[in-house]
Every structure is written in C-alpha cells, then in structure tokens.
C-alpha cells in the first residue's frame, strides 16, 4: 500500500525519529512504513492519522 508519510513528515519538518516519538514506535517502524515494506495495523494507522490531523484515506492510498 502506498502512503504519503514521507511527504507529510517533510512538510512539517519532522525527522523519522520525531515522527516515531510522536507515534510511540521505533524509527525502524516509521522507515518500514514509509518505504512501503510494512503496512501498519488499523490502530497504528489511526494513530498516524491523529498525529497528522488527517483522515486515514488521505495518508494511505490504494495500490
């Protein structure tokens, strides 16, 4: 699944570590999600959406 994590993070000037701390996960997790190697669970996807104050479908894209 594609996602806009890297783009949204860059807009806010956050490093992967910054985002990881906000999500309370490891930096490796953020990297794996960003690079599309790992799709987060629904609860984590909701946390990501909350951190960016957006809807899940605005962050995660089909295909």
């Amino acid at each position, binding site marked *: 699944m594609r996602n806009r994590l890297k783009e949204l993070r860059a807009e806010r000037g956050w490093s992967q570590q910054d985002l990881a701390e906000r999500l*309370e*996960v*490891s930096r*490796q*997790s953020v990297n*794996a*999600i960003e690079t599309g*190697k*790992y799709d*987060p*669970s629904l609860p*984590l996807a909701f946390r990501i959406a909350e951190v960016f104050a957006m809807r899940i479908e605005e962050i995660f894209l089909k295909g």
Partner: protein
Amino acid sequence: MAAYNLAFRRYIRRFVPLTIAYGASVALATAVIPDGAPASPGIIAIAVLPGLAVVGWLWAMARLLVELDDEYLRMLEVRKFLVATGTTLALTSIWGILELFTPAMPKLPVFFVFPLWCLGLAVGAVFNRLRFGAARCA
C-alpha cells in the same frame, strides 16, 4: 526510554542467566554422566536441567512478544521464530529420512535440535535483513 527498548532490555536480562544456566547444565551432564550410563533417576534429573533452561528460554521469548508493543519489531521477531522453526523442522526431516534409509548417514543426536533452532534464529535475522533491511535482533 521507549517501551520497545524496555522490552528488549528485559529480554536480555532474562536471556543471559538462562543461557548461562543452559551451558552450565550441559557442562554438568557432560562431566558427571559417563558413557553408557543407565537411565537412573539421578541421571534423568541431571538431563532435565538443560530442558528446564530451554523452557525458560522459550518463556523469555514469549514474554518479549507480549511486552514488545511496537508491532513492526514484534513482526520481525515472529518472523525469526518462524524461520528458525521451519529451518529446524525441514533439516531434521531431511536428515531423518536419510538416517532411516541410508546406513552410511551419521546419526544426529536429538540433543542438537535446540541448538539447531537457535542457529535458525540467526538465519531468520538474515531473512529479515534481506527482506526489510532490518538489523535489530533480539
């Protein structure tokens, strides 16, 4: 400190003494049990000790999976366990068939199944590295 780091720290705190206990119990069995010894209650009691350490090891790994709240890191650990289990079962099945039907095949003592599984964890870490570029390894 992040919760996932605490989980790994706790795991190491459990893993190290259990590893020492396993090594010590195997060394004790090697030193005390003579070749061709009968399966007396005393010998069986000594043989049970490494088994208890193995149970402790599996418990420590299970606790790691329970306490690790980072789902991605947890998945990496689960993948390692699965690769280790698959590798061990596959290799022992292959070896077992050869043992059954090929007289020249050396017998593999069942004792080596657990050390083989531990080697499988390293294989699992390599798989994780290749698939995810993930270096973390408990």
